[in-house]
């Protein structure tokens, strides 16, 4: 708060292995208020694991994650500092590739659940926040629907609203459009662009290069568990510094 240049999120020396193979290798970076970071790279490069280590869904083996100066250190195994991790998560919104809405609850109940149960917000207030957010993602009329009655794009917009209902400091998007039919991708990206315009700090793992170029301030290019490039978006797409990144871009552009 006191120092305007203090990062919201500081990731230091994060490492993670699954069954002996290193997925994240000594990753460090800072994220400042309002920054939009797009993380790209080949599959298996550790992009999703990076997001999942930040909010401790996958507990890191080593390194630390600090949000507004409050650190959670890795390497203690699961559950050793459960309440600290829970508090961290209250301020970090996460959007999944597979939406993960709760199918037995209506859209409105999906949005109200965490503010009421995890944050202690009053029901009336949570309902008002939820309705406002549904309006913001263009789904106010769907508040009484069940998730399975919605299209994939609508479900993902609800999932974004559900994360926003916690009023997070930062939003993590884990390939939010990868499981959508092509014609539904745009409505989700539009909601995300709106968030970016409103100044939300965002980390987005994506294969949508146009979105990354339009919205991203910084591009992380990841390969084999490392951030090979951390470059301002215009420069990254004009002239990536590493050969691996140029090759990746060339392949993708060759496909499309």
């Amino acid at each position, binding site marked *: 708060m006191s120092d305007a240049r203090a990062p919201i999120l500081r990731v230091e020396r994060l490492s993670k292995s699954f069954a002996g193979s290193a997925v994240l290798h000594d990753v460090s970076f800072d994220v400042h208020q309002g920054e939009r970071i797009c993380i790209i790279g080949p599959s298996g490069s550790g992009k999703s694991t990076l997001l999942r280590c930040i*909010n401790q*869904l996958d507990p890191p083996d080593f390194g630390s994650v600090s949000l507004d100066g409050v650190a959670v250190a890795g390497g203690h195994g*699961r*559950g050793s500092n*459960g309440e600290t991790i*829970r*508090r961290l*998560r*209250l301020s*970090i919104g*996460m959007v*999944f*590739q*597979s*939406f*993960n*809405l*709760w*199918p*037995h609850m209506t859209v409105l109940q999906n949005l109200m*659940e*965490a503010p009421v*149960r*995890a*944050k202690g917000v009053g029901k009336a207030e949570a309902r008002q926040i939820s309705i406002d957010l549904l309006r913001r993602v263009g789904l106010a009329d769907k508040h009484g629907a*069940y*998730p*399975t*009655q919605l299209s*994939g794009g609508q*479900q993902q917009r609800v*999932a974004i609203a*559900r*994360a926003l209902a*916690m009023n997070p400091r930062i939003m993590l998007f884990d390939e939010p459009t990868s*499981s959508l039919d092509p014609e539904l991708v745009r409505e989700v990206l539009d909601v995300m662009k709106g968030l970016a315009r409103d100044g939300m700090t965002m980390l987005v793992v994506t294969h949508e290069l146009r979105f990354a170029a339009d919205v991203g301030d910084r591009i992380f290019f990841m390969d084999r568990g490392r951030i090979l490039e951390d470059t301002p978006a215009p420069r990254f797409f004009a002239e990536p510094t590493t050969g691996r990144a140029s090759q990746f871009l060339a392949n993708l552009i060759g496909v499309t």
Partner: protein
Amino acid sequence: MRVSIDTDALAFGFPILLHGLVNTILVCCAATFIGFAAGIPVALARLSRWSMMRLPVVAFVELMRDTPFLVQAFIIYFGLAELGIRLDATVAGVLALSLYATANFSESIRGAILSVPKGQFEAARALGIRYFSLIGRIILPQSLGYLVPALTNQIIGIIKDSAALSVITTPEMSMAAQVVVGESFRPVETYAMVAVLYWALTTTVVTLMRQVERAPRRIWRSGERAGVDHRLPIEVSE
């Protein structure tokens, strides 16, 4: 050769058996509710990643599932008596049957929890929802669809196994049958009636459970589930 049916024996035995049936229903209801209530924490403990939680529960569940109920009933009734705890035969019967139900229900509950997609847990955790809210409000309601058919079978098993409680003189229907036969010397008529009464009871339970099964099958069960990571291995405890 003529088979004669002694209608007097039927008339004599029926009210006694009916009384036994009421007791069977009460004992089985008690065991079912206790078994379900206790089965949930047992299932959660078995899903824990802390071996201190998991191992005692694994031992209990396997012991109860891999030994005959008849033997368990004997051990509980006479074993507790040896320790100076003299239980009424009904109380001992409910206790034995409840322990047995707990072990069996807990395995069905565990399976039902594991059948909920991993992403459902992760979404709740990522939002900071605490463990008991996660289980009680997000996971168990979704697992009911898987759970109810399994529980139906197990409740029927409990009703049938409750007949073994006659060996420790719990006054349920099979015990009543022994009393009737002792008076009337007509085992065939008596046990035929007992069979019909057990059948009526289990059929009623199946019919009731079908209604319960339909209840959670609301709109969200009819559509396709969102999510691609169905049935990945999960750790439930946080």
